[in-house]
């Protein structure tokens, strides 16, 4: 389906939806339509969209012959799944025991303050950052631990995390001025 990507659609970002939808189908076909494939399918689809839009969940239900209520039930059970869009950078602060006793709370407060977020507001308006807490990332030896997208940061301090964020913002700004990749 490479061709569809080059759709001359007149306005930007349009071809993307089509491409993603194609991807959803690919994912479903690859995993097959047995109920046990539901979770891996949702995982991959979320990777594609960064969240699980209602229409896509409905579509998956149709394709797999499940009732949408079951799909919705599964999607709301596991904390990995998000039904609201997440930011480009998902910051996961470990609040597992090891990290908690070494001050993960302070890191969270510092981040919330920096990004204007809270327990209720997890994603910044510009969809750049999402801050979540998780219990244990399995790198307890480095407590307190923060994971930003796929990268793990150990022995983080409130000041340290602010620096990392500043760095990301700086990189982002730089990128904006650079020519778009795709």
């Amino acid at each position, binding site marked *: 389906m490479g061709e569809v990507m080059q759709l001359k659609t007149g306005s930007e970002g349009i071809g993307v939806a089509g491409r993603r939808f194609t991807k959803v189908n690919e994912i479903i076909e690859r995993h097959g339509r*047995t*109920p*046990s*494939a*539901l*979770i*891996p399918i*949702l*995982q991959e689809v979320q990777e594609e969209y960064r969240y699980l839009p209602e229409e896509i969940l409905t579509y998956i239900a149709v394709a797999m012959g499940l009732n949408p209520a*079951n799909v919705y*039930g*599964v999607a709301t*059970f*596991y*904390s*990995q*799944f998000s039904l609201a869009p997440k930011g480009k950078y998902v910051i996961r602060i*470990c*609040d*597992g*025991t*090891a*990290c*908690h*006793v*070494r001050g993960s709370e302070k890191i969270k407060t510092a981040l919330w303050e920096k990004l204007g977020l809270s327990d209720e507001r997890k994603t910044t308006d510009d969809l750049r950052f999402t801050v979540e807490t*998780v*219990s*244990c*990332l*399995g*790198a*307890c*030896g*480095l*407590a307190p*631990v923060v994971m930003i997208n*796929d*990268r*793990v*940061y*150990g*022995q983080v301090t409130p000041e340290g995390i602010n620096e990392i964020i500043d760095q990301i913002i700086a990189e982002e700004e730089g990128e904006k001025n650079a020519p778009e990749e795709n």
Partner: protein
Amino acid sequence: MLRKKTDLDRMRDELRDLYKKETARILVCAGTGCVANGSLQVFKALQDELEKHGVFITLELLAGEKKPGVTAVKSGCHGFCEMGPLVRLEPSGVLYIKVKPEDAPEIVEALVSGGPPVERLLYHHPVTGEVFAEEEAIPFYKNQQRNALANCGSIDPEEIREYIARDGYQALAKVLTELKPEDVCREITASGLRGRGGGGFPTGLKWDLTRKAKSDKKYVICNGDEGDPGAFMDRSVMEGDPHKILEGMAIAGYAVGADEGYIYVRAEYPLAVERLKKAVQAAEDYGLLGKNILGSGFDFQIKIKEGAGAFVCGEETALIASIEGKRGMPRPKPPFPSDSGLWGKPTLINNVETFANIPRIITNGAAWFRKAGTEKSPGTKTFALTGQVVNTGLIEVPMGVTVREVVYGIGGGIRGGKKFKAVQIGGPSGGCLTEEHLDLPLDFDSLLSAGAMVGSGGLVVMDEDTCMVEVARFFMGFTQNESCGKCVPCREGTKRMLEILQRAVDGEGRVEDLEVLEELALAVKDGSLCGLGKTAPNPVLTMLQYFRDEYLAHIAEKRCPAGVCQALAAYAVIAEKCKGCGRCKKVCPVEAISGEVRKPFTIDPEKCIKCGACVDVCAFKAIARGGK
């Protein structure tokens, strides 16, 4: 493709000969912790440096050229992650800690020239200053006995040939060629191995039950969900020695009559998933998994399933539901999985570490396994030692060693010379042990009798600055958040227990809460459906048992003795310690601090908003928040 046992033997011998041509080997830890600290860059730098010296060689080159050289490989976690990135040299056993890419030239130079190791990169004892060159000599490692973790940190987990060279898959070959399924079960039973997933259920018995279940189809599941916060041993094994798990599972498959296995790995472990997938692929390529393994007629395939973020999916029936694509809610037992598990078929579920123990038991025999550990809890057990100890990390010790040996021997005592207060063992479902338990042996039964449990093996050490009420609240917050919400006692009960503990921490506790909390804890323990709810009250119950005064101080006197609970804090300058520097005054946002330079300052409790800023800036620790 290995078609029979002799193929495997021959391959092992050939590989051993090859490895003999290594003049030295550099192992760079590529566990999650070290990667986070930049070990991949270190690896690259070391590789470049070796090439510069013209000594770099790979397994492929060794096979072709006959020219000796130094290999460099990425290993799994050594358990001493805090000191990472770690670099180990073989055969010397030298361990470098906190290595940076810039250190590569020095390291390689020393290695190639045969000179002494780079001293500044060696482990220095934080108190005595003694320098340790060899990994095994470091106090952190000295008292350990590595069995399940044996290969972690000393082989390349992505290279099946290293595993084979170290007698990998020999146990499977032995089982397939020499033993009947019931013999295997008997051997495991004789070893006394108990499940390392927390419950300590006798593994041999479980295998035998599954073996005896009649069905056309059976499954083996490896539980790699490891949701306990503060625990990461299963992760290290999956990342550092994946083939051992595959071998253990295949042996189990043969013993119970299953031809299909699943490894359920939690979503937070992407590296483990990647390594396991590679390992399965390699094992299939070598004919060690798949159809007609080693010509025995035994088929066994393994699939990897990723969790999606739910602690309760570590519970076996919830895990099964999750593999089936459903909400991970436990169901009542009986029927047990050994009768009706995945898709209603008999299913054997064991923990990662349990499987990792299998190959050696088969190879060395049950009696060998029993040499370590106690009568009722034989063998070794891994623990994740974290919290306020000097050395944190992953350890493996014989069962039955005392808490003291772990905390003070391996862990090197409490950080910053503080006083030991408690150790939380078994994660959120375990309990706290105190000073009086320091000589308690760490084994399944002793811990249960003290109100704690081995659980998955998380050991969180707490010092005098820890508030036990806050800790109980923290664990309750965790279980409440992770409850699946199916049964009433756990869903509603943990919520209310949390409510009560939160009140205590917020300074709004009521005296009558004590009775309600206790009653609730007992009802939730008795009434819940699965282990999560049944054990959720443990931290509260041990807190009430061992630190009742501390709780009473919170609710009756509105005081947090450890000075942790913000709402209860009462900030005051300790006149004797105050040097009158005035820094605290500058940071106070509400001008609650006053005083003259070089004289003790004072805090006006009426104005103070308990922000804690002054404590952080006082270089003389002259401000206390413990209150009255």
